[in-house]
């Protein structure tokens, strides 16, 4: 069946309530107060939201929910979520630590999301794209079957509709509780990116704090242009494991976005308020030879 019908067939089976991409901007969220992890400054939710969760005093980039991230990236009112109901099962009946089923239920409850990534169609600076954002609150934005599936489908849909992909990424890595099924999502997502790439289509990755493990070692590092937020940790193996296993002394800015830039691994460190405009500029260049598709 053609890819588009395949997506449509899956759409018909949606069971979960769609997630409002603007969630987190509700009045309740505006009233709550937050403490900056960087300098300790207290700010109310409204001030925090208006500043894109960046501390006005020290410019520390605090974590954003996937909904807040999407809202900060796309042209207002253009985001149409896809595959919102997708969520991982508990194929291994994994009970070590907090049982996985409980962890999943808790994460859904707490975030209002069904999985650790939000994906949809939108325009950025008027340019149509498939856009996604990961949410670190959802089991550390780890990649299990559903995250891998949503990423693979995002690239397949973009390939079918000749659109570029823009992903705002954060992740603790492959989701241990799904064992080898999670590890294989690295190959699955990379394969989908490779097809999109071979079709002559563009991909921009925005790496946010923290981007580590199996997500870094798969779709996150296969973009045409890779941006990162100031201070974001970007790496494969975590600093604690490196210290434990090698007794190496870690440089002060180890795995920081700035250090990865200096080592030639990313293209630019961009502060949050400038990311949407930067991505819009890039999308003007990342156009396939045939001009590409448009968002219906």
């Amino acid at each position, binding site marked *: 069946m053609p890819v588009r019908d395949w997506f449509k067939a*899956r759409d018909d*089976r*949606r*069971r979960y309530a769609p997630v409002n991409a603007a969630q987190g901007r509700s009045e309740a969220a505006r009233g709550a107060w937050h403490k900056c992890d960087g300098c300790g400054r207290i700010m109310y939710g409204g001030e925090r939201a208006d500043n894109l969760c960046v501390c006005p005093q020290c410019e520390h980039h605090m974590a954003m929910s996937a909904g807040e991230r999407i809202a900060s990236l796309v042209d207002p009112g253009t985001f149409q979520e896809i*595959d*919102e*109901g*997708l*969520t*991982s099962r508990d*194929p*291994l009946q*994994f*009970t*070590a*630590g907090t049982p996985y089923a409980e962890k999943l239920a808790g994460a859904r409850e707490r975030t209002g999301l*069904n999985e650790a990534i939000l994906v949809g169609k939108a325009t950025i600076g008027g340019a149509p794209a498939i856009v996604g954002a990961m949410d670190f609150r959802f089991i550390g934005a780890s990649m299990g*079957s*559903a995250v*891998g*599936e949503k990423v693979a489908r995002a690239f397949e849909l973009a390939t079918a509709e000749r659109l570029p992909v823009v992903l705002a990424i954060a992740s603790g890595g*492959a*989701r*241990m509780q*799904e*064992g*080898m*099924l*999670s*590890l*294989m999502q*690295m*190959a699955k997502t*990379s*394969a989908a990116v*490779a*097809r999109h*790439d071979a079709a002559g289509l563009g991909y921009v990755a925005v790496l946010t704090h923290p981007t580590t493990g*199996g997500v*870094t*070692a*798969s*779709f*996150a*590092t*296969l973009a045409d242009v890779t941006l990162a937020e100031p201070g974001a940790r970007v790496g*494969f*193996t975590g600093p604690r*494991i*490196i210290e*434990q*296993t*090698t007794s190496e002394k*870690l*440089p002060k800015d*180890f795995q920081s976005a700035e*250090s990865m830039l200096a*080592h*030639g*691994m990313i293209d630019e460190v961009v502060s949050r308020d400038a990311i949407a405009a930067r991505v819009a500029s890039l999308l003007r260049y990342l156009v396939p030879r045939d001009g590409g598709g448009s968002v219906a």
Partner: protein
Amino acid sequence: MKRYVMGFERPLAELESKLDSLKELEVSEEPDLAREIEELTVEVDELRGTLYSALSPWEKVQVSRHPDRPRTQDYVAALFTDVVELRGDRAFRDDPAVLTALATVAGRRVVVLGHRKGKTARENAERNFGMAHPEGLRKARRGMRLADKLGLPIVSFIDTPGASPGVGAEERGQAWAISECLATLSSVRVPVVAVGIGEGGSGGALAIGFGDRLIMLEHAYYSVITPESCASILVRETDRAGEMAASLALTAQDLVDLGLADEIVGEPRGGAHRDPEAAIGDVGRAVVSALDALSEREADALVEERYERLRSIGEFTGVG
């Protein structure tokens, strides 16, 4: 005789040392000795069979790490002829933890990839226990691209605790080296046969460790994370690695049950390290028969099937 004894083998080791001491006695001093030795030999063999037919996942992890277990270089030396090794990533250095070579097996020219663990402390220090640096994976990717260009099948031997952790590896882009291998290996227009011969640790294993067929040795493991690291992260107690090994579904049989591995090659009684020659021969037959089957496929169909194979992996609901 000094043996490397794993915890679960202790009862076996006791019997074996008893057998050793009997063998040291002069037969003339003890008329019934020959018979006793014979009986004890049978007992040892039976106990070994019993132990190894019911290994727990954690015990299999230990067997997969046995220092005498045949390594990539043993398989290559025994099964392949006219081996020409490729060296270096053309950017930084040659990583001895990874093998990339042109080689011939059963009359077929192929590219061989593999993690190269050592057997001695010195070899392991040189080869970083088979843990690849980015330059090692980039060398492997050279092999993949050459295979693609020339139409040579790829045979890959998986045996690593993981990609090398460390400052240099991170600064040179360990994550990028892995993802580039994944993207390339998923799309090469040649047959890819991967074989789990020992440890299959995380992204460092996966970088060269999937394809059109995944063959697993009976006691090899393949896991999203080592049981020790999993225990350290999830329950903050490394001594619960055994429990994690059982939870992670990492054995050859688990992989078959999950639909990820195609075939299990049985190991000689007592593990591949007891009879490396037999184990290597059995792996060789499985590899050649996989290559035979895949060589009939058209390149387009092969790549499409590999993509579908990857695409079908995952357990999710609420679609979506």
